[in-house]
């Protein structure tokens, strides 16, 4: 591996652009009050990040151990910063008088200090700080590209948002600052090899998350932010505990070595399990979903960036990283079942929601559960499925969040019921949203490709496959319902694209196009990137054949299917264009329809609105009842997992 580094001239530069540059940009934007300049800094940073991440593609795998930053030992810098960060948490805890945060910060500080003491003393192995393989690369690409696109869209969004809230003193600069900070931290997390680094960046994302959730400063926002903070601190604490136990065994905080040293011993598995707990919390798995739901109070770009496409992926990323280490262990199987449960429960709870953002949030939890299930299954097929799911979920979910944000700014509601007939008011946005939904649930799009792989990969694990089968049926319910609502009457057939800022169209458009192109390119993406991830020990499970992916017992002809689907789509579009000439009749209202659309002549000759609302089946899928049950079950699962590790 050492020689790979020497070959890669420029990799350190790229990495510092990816990690350090956003930090600097964040510091730059903070004092800037001019909206123009803010836009400039943000777009520039985004563009640079996109370019850098693309340039990184041919350079994996690599390891890198920078010695110093501005002459100070880099490890010392990071550790110090980590301490500082934890004291900031403590401060927040005191400021808001939040006991849990106080306790957790102190616990973290103490354990970090303990770890430091131990690393300083003893024979101290300096490990490579950064490491990148295709898995990290994919996450870097997601964070940098999707992240930047979201940042672009947040520029017009925040402008409208502040106008809407009638904020007197703009706080946008702070917002952008945190956003950029986050992008750097995100890249940092997925590129860290030294677990100290990992923890530091992990906590930076937690801080960003807190700041962004409480951005609007309303009491509810602050409360939800604090909840996110304590829950994620708990995650950080789990990480630290895991690290301590890793160190006890390895005498190093080296993520790569940890996996290579895979063993079935109890202490090893406990450390892995503890790290996984941290990951579960970051990925908002039950019973820790609360913070993610609360996070929906933040301005929508935040949800798009942190709470669906990138930050929550840190958790599943970590588990995927650790997976080879627990191959064959019962722990791994438990994680699979836990993930499948999260998938099912998330989908079920999403069915009970009419709040668009909450549906997205639950759907995110659900998808992360599926990814976890794949990670836990720990077969090459499952791994492939997990990575496809990460990629496509990031793109499509970001798209959907941005759509909801755009819609919300126009109709002043994020409730699905209020989006009925949106295609009349904002036809293009509605169409884009529907495309997003289609990409969520229909073949040949990537998410379905991932789900297909997942089911075929889980087929031998009965418990998992039953839950996945049920969960995916539930998924169809809430997406189809939403898409139908958007396209409801009154759409007369003429098409007036609504006006939106250029950056909004750009962001939405590029995400839709991205989803489509990536789908068609999926087999080649697979061939180019995935093989690298699957080493060591896994042989590539699929062959690319006839534009599709195939193995001994299944085949998914991506390209042919895409072509056929496109033809079907084109025919339907032609029909649709012609259909503008059909006679439009009023819908069936038992013969009582009036000239006003959707009104009928009710009792006493009074016009009544034929309200038609979706089913949310609150008696079955209502949050109140179901969530308690789910949380209980999840807790039991977690205890089982810990037991399995022991």
């Amino acid at each position, binding site marked *: 591996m050492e020689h790979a580094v020497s070959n890669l001239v420029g990799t350190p530069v790229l990495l510092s652009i990816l990690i350090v540059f956003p930090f600097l940009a964040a510091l730059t934007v903070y004092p800037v009050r001019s909206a123009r300049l803010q836009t400039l800094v943000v777009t520039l940073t985004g563009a640079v990040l996109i370019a850098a991440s693309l340039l990184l593609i041919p350079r994996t795998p690599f390891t890198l151990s920078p010695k110093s930053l501005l002459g100070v030992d880099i490890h010392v810098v990071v550790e110090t910063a980590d301490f500082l960060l934890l004291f900031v948490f403590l401060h927040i805890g005191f400021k808001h008088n939040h006991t849990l945060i106080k306790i957790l910060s102190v616990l973290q500080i103490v354990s970090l200090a303990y770890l430091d003491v131990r690393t300083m003393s003893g024979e101290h192995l300096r490990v490579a700080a950064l490491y990148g393989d295709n898995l990290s690369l994919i996450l870097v690409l997601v964070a940098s590209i999707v992240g930047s696109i979201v940042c672009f869209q947040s520029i017009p969004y925040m402008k409208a948002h502040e106008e809407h809230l009638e904020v007197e003193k703009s706080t946008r600069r702070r917002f952008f600052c945190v956003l950029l900070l986050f992008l750097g931290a995100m890249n940092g997390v997925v590129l860290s090899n030294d677990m100290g680094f990992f923890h530091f960046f992990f906590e930076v994302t937690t801080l960003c998350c807190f700041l962004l959730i409480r951005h609007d400063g309303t009491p509810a926002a602050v409360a939800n932010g604090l909840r996110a903070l304590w829950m994620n601190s708990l995650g950080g604490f789990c990480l630290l505990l895991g690290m301590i136990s890793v160190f006890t065994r390895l005498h190093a905080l080296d993520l790569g070595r940890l996996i290579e040293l895979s063993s079935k011993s109890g202490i090893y598995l406990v450390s892995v399990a503890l790290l996984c707990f941290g990951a579960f919390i970051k990925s908002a798995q039950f019973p820790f979903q609360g913070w993610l739901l609360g996070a929906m109070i933040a301005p929508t770009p935040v949800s798009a960036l942190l709470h669906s496409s990138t930050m929550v992926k840190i958790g599943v990323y970590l588990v995927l990283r650790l997976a080879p280490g627990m191959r064959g262990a019962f722990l791994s199987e438990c994680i699979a079942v836990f993930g499948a449960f999260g998938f099912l429960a998330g989908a079920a709870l999403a069915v009970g929601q009419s709040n668009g953002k909450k549906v997205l949030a639950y759907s995110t939890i659900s998808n992360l559960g599926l990814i976890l299930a794949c990670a836990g299954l720990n077969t090459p097929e499952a791994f492939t499925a997990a990575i496809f799911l990460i990629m496509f979920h990031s793109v499509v979910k970001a798209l959907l969040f941005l759509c909801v944000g755009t819609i919300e700014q126009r109709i002043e509601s994020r409730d699905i019921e209020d989006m009925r007939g949106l295609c009349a008011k904002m036809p293009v946005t509605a169409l884009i949203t529907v495309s997003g939904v289609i990409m969520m649930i229909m073949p040949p799009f990537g998410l379905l490709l991932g789900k297909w792989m997942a*089911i075929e990969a889980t087929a031998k694990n009965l418990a998992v496959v039953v839950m*996945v089968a049920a969960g995916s049926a539930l998924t169809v319910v809430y997406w189809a319902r939403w898409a139908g609502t958007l396209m409801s009457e009154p759409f007369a057939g003429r098409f007036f694209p609504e006006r939106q800022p250029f950056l909004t169209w750009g962001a939405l458009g590029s995400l839709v196009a991205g989803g489509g192109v990536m789908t068609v390119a999926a087999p080649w993406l697979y061939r180019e990137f995935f093989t690298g991830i699957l080493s060591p020990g896994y042989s590539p499970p699929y062959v690319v054949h006839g534009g599709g992916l195939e193995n001994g017992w299944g085949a998914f002809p991506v390209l042919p299917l895409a072509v056929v689907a496109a033809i079907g789509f084109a025919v339907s579009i032609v029909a649709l264009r012609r259909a503008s000439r059909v006679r439009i009749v009023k819908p069936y209202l038992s013969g009582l329809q009036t000239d006003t659309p959707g009104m009928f002549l009710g009792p006493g000759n009074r016009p009544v609105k034929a309200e038609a609302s979706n089913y949310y089946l609150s008696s079955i899928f209502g949050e109140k009842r179901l969530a308690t049950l789910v949380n209980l079950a999840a807790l039991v699962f977690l205890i089982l997992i810990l037991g399995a590790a022991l």
Partner: protein
Amino acid sequence: MIDTILVVAATLVAAPLLGGLISGLDRIATARLQSRVGPPVVQPFHDVIKLLNKEPVAVNVWQVFCAYAYLSASMIAVVLFALGSDLLLVLFTQAVGAVFLVVGALSSTSPYSLVGAHRELLQTLSYEPLLVLVAVGIYLQTGSFKIADTRAWGAPLLLKLPFLYAALGLVLTIKLRKSPFDLSTSHHGHQEIVKGLLTDYSGPFLAFVEIGHWFDVILLLWLCSLFWATSWTGMILLVAVTYALEVVTDNVTARMNWRWMLGYAWAMGLTLSVVNLIWLHVR
């Protein structure tokens, strides 16, 4: 290549013809069971041709799009099946059709369409997991999700997967819109939500939905036939008996509500499937 094209063409022609014929026979048999004469066997074709030539009216042009999309998806699913491709993929493709049908119905503001659409979603919710589990069962037995491999499997699957076949029968009842599950679009008009899902589809678009339905039925029956793929007689007999049982069930039960359906399909269907799968595992 030529082979493939021939198979595709043959499927696209034969499936609707067969589907219509089955539906015609179904209506005659139902009439007989009710001591009636019933329509001629080609009645479904008359219906569809008539509908295709009616004035196209729609409540919302999206509905037109959805009708076409539904038909396309159903056709693609059957063609994929004919080509012996991946069973799961076929099921997913067919589900796409169902989703478009629902989206089309939701595009109306009539509560009748809407209630029908939601019931259809609930029906999908009831049977989709069972279908996936049937596919999984077939995989566990034959070691492949590919339909071509299943066809070539040496012994009748029915003997190994009897409970899964029963679960498939449940799915078939739902899909054929037969009592006690004819909830979202009863094939006859006397129900509380009029024609439910199909209330606001009209004229040619209704015809598309009908043809798409034929494709769906053929697909499911074909799937049933896989359970006795070793001999033609066995295959035809199995499908005929299964369908006859469906018709009889339709005539000896009242229509239930969706709460019952969801509970029954999940409790009964999942139990049947899981028992069968466990059995496969243990062996």
